[in-house]
């Protein structure tokens, strides 16, 4: 029995439309038109205990809706969903006691209070026994290096510090599942790395199940063995990053450094992704060895490197391909 089970979930919203313009606003006084939006269409997946799954898709794809359904905030229009054998929205209180949620852009801490007091308050809300709480709290403080931040009011923390504090706050009651919604959004490189390292540790050492929603594909590449790709309310893919590359990212990137500046022949020119002075990046779809031969014999090459295309490009290709199919 998987820990998270989602079967054929759909969610339709009704949205009021406003007519543009002056008269339109007047018309709105008397009646309004509605339009339906399918945020999720027949989405199914399951996640086992201890998995670390990335959940990606363009804006408005339905990621947040899914997270909200899984956390018991929203009720789906149809379909079945169980987490730890419970239907989230039916046994909301029991359910939320065993999950942790981090919404990256909003804090769950009390704005004007020192961090530690927010933590104490959360202990009361979740009714965590004192000894247990102190143990967990100290462990989290150490893992996330929060020791120096505890007495500072939340409004004075930098974003990176706040996100770290927020993540700890979501784990004080030792949930077995953690939903992370854009945890690294807006963070500087150092903070991103430390948040990632923590998530990895949490998953590996504590066997917490993590569902990570993100736009930052570096997060996915660094953390997730498995990804779910959502687009326009439908699940496009459920698999590993390797599978994703196989399907949409065949071909290689060839980075070349030249001895001196040289003009590039037109048939090579169209493959250039980026160029700055003597550094050129080519995207090569097929027959890579022949392309390398060509380059080596035509230009004064100083150095050459063949890589996978970056994950962003793979995903962009996939979205494009799927849009054409629709």
């Amino acid at each position, binding site marked *: 029995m998987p820990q998270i089970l989602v079967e054929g979930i759909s969610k339709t919203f009704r949205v009021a439309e*406003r007519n543009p313009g*002056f008269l339109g*606003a*007047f018309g*709105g*006084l008397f009646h309004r038109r509605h339009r339906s939006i399918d945020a999720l269409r027949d989405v199914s997946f399951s996640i086992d205990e201890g998995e670390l799954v990335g959940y990606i898709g363009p804006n408005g794809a339905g990621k947040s809706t899914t997270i909200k359904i899984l956390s018991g905030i929203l009720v789906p229009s149809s379909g079945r969903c169980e987490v730890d054998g419970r239907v989230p929205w039916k046994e909301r209180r029991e359910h939320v006691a065993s999950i942790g949620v981090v919404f990256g852009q909003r804090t769950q801490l009390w704005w004007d209070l020192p961090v530690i007091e927010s933590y104490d308050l959360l202990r009361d809300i979740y009714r965590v026994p004192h000894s247990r709480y102190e143990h967990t709290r100290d462990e989290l403080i150490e893992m996330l290096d929060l020791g120096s931040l505890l007495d500072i009011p939340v409004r004075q923390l930098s974003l990176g510090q706040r996100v770290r504090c927020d993540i700890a706050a979501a784990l004080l009651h030792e949930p077995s599942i953690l939903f992370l919604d854009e945890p690294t959004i807006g963070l500087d490189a150092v903070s991103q790395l430390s948040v990632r390292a923590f998530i990895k540790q949490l998953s590996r050492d504590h066997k917490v199940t993590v569902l990570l929603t993100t736009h930052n594909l570096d997060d996915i590449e660094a953390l997730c063995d498995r990804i779910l790709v959502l687009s326009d309310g439908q699940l496009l893919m459920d698999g590993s990053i390797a599978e994703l590359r196989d399907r949409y990212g065949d071909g290689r990137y060839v980075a070349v450094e030249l001895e001196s500046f040289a003009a590039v022949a037109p048939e090579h020119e169209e493959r250039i992704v980026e160029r700055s002075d003597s550094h050129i990046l080519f995207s090569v779809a097929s027959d890579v060895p022949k392309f390398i031969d060509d380059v080596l014999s035509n230009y004064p090459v100083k150095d050459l490197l063949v890589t996978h295309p970056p994950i962003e490009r793979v995903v962009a290709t996939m979205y494009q391909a799927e849009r054409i199919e629709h």
Partner: protein
Amino acid sequence: MPSLTTALLRSYTAVVAARFRLLLQYRAAALAGVATQIFWGCIKLMVLGAFYAAAVTTPPMTFTAIVAYVWLGQVLIGLLPWNHDPELQELFTSGGVAYELLRPLDLYWFWFARTLAFRTAPTLLRMVPGIIFATLILPLIGLPEWALPAPASMTHGLMFALSFTVTVMLSCAITILITISMFWLIEARGLSTFMYGVVPVFSGMIVPLPLFPDWMQPFLQYQPFRGLCDVPFRIYSGDIPLSMAGQEIAFQFVWVVILILFGYGLIARARVRLVVQGG
């Protein structure tokens, strides 16, 4: 100066249009606002009616004059200058006010046009259903004694229109002083709270001014807020006789001139201050 006039006119119409759109978008709020006005009007009339019924001595105003006073007050309540344009507030908190000073316009009149729009647009919109209720619906539902009466005569009506025009200017001249105060205060919330306490009482919106104790009348008579409600409303009902109307309108106008000059002077000082201190 045709360029100044067109610029002012354009900024006025632009702000009026924006306000109308905003108000119409929030349709429920607009309708609720009208209902609230009507509700307050009824409550006030019932309270004052009860006092009139229990009166031992003859009150200084007839009840018909009271009815006119109350309904005109409810319908035109949006004109009371206790708050200020939030968009102008935004200018001060964001520091954008420095750009305003750079415009090739007379800042006072530019803001005056905006303020005029801010004050009149919501009132114009909400006035209509309020007046319909007070003149037509009340008699229909069997409460003709509560209905807004017509002006005491044609001449009273014309004098009221004149006086009311000055009222609008007076309201803008006061509102703009709140705006200008932000050159020094940055945030006018405290001042607004204060005005919210003072303006309704001294304009006559809470209780018609003639009903206040006699010993307070000399003071109430000459303060500027009286020009906001008391003067035009009593000209309308004939409580101020026609022979006095001209003098009362002149009283309103003198205050308008004083307040405009005051505002003008303050802006000049603020400009100097901003130039010297660099904002």
